[in-house]
């Protein structure tokens, strides 16, 4: 039986398809590149969630490193990250601000009363005005903002303890070192 080089063609094609599919499996289609990195935080006006909660203003996000967290009372994945946000807030590790996205004031306020409020200030974005300006695709999403008010990092999906430890805290340290 003579060995023919062309006998390798099916194997080559199969390897190529296998490789392409393997790369496809590793790609997370939800992890979309953000166009907002290194851009200034857009201007915004939000509604109050409740009279007894400080309303988030653009000036809150200047002069210090902060996290801007997009959440909603309808968002189940937000409950998943909530303990981490509560801990960071209790320990005063970083200033956390909340955007209550596509929600009603009463539902948002009730959610914060039941689950705890980690936010130094919070505002309601009922019609996605700020969300679309930020390029939000789903909740929760969290933006790391430097003291000049520039967006430096975007976390899509919940901030678990692991995400905080492995991804966000190292970036916060880098920003702290920049100062």
């Amino acid at each position, binding site marked *: 039986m003579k060995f023919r080089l062309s006998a390798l063609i099916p194997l080559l094609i199969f390897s190529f398809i296998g490789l392409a599919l393997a790369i496809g499996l590793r790609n997370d*289609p939800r992890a*979309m*590149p*953000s*166009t*907002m990195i290194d851009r200034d935080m857009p201007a915004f006006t939000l509604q109050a969630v409740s009279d007894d909660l400080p309303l988030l203003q653009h000036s809150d996000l200047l002069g210090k490193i902060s996290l801007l967290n997009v959440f909603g009372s309808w968002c189940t994945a937000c409950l998943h990250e909530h303990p981490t946000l509560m801990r960071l807030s209790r320990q005063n590790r970083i200033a956390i601000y909340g955007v209550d996205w*596509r929600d009603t004031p009463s539902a948002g306020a009730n959610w914060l009363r039941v689950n705890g409020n980690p936010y130094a200030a919070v505002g309601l974005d009922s*019609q*996605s*005005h700020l*969300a*679309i*300006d*930020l*390029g*939000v*695709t*789903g909740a929760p999403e969290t933006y790391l903002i430097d003291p000049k008010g520039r967006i430096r990092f975007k976390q899509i999906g919940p901030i678990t303890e692991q995400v905080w430890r492995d991804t966000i805290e190292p970036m916060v340290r880098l920003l702290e070192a920049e100062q």
Partner: protein
Amino acid sequence: MKQVWAAILIWLAISVTSALAVTPAEQLRDPALEARARVISKGLRCVVCQNQSIDDSNASLAADMRVLVRQRILAGDTNTQVTQYMVDRYGNFVLLRPPVKRNTYALWFGPLGFIGFGALIFWLTARRRKNPKIAPAGTENPDEKQRIDELLEQYRK
């Protein structure tokens, strides 16, 4: 004839209701502006569901994006400006028809490459069939002649 008309009407009713995620409250009063909004919306990807346009999608973010498209139109933006407004915030990903750029060449011209590759294989195969490599009888060398004789011997037994 009546039945044909009935069929057409039923088909129209089905196709219209199944395609319309746009609620009456969202629509602009001016039909010309509304038509522009529909055209723009059909080209924008719903970033929640990803493989639908915001015109087709029932996702709440898609609804808010549709409203924003209409607000931009009322503010005097051209179609290109509205689309660019979304691209500025969501990147080229938001376009259902990606622009031809260096990093999308593979996407746009890859299929042509595959057709070319197939045509090449077809041409090579066709050429081989037309010029078979079987030598005509009487030109075999002594070794081959001996082997043929052996085989014929076996066959005759």
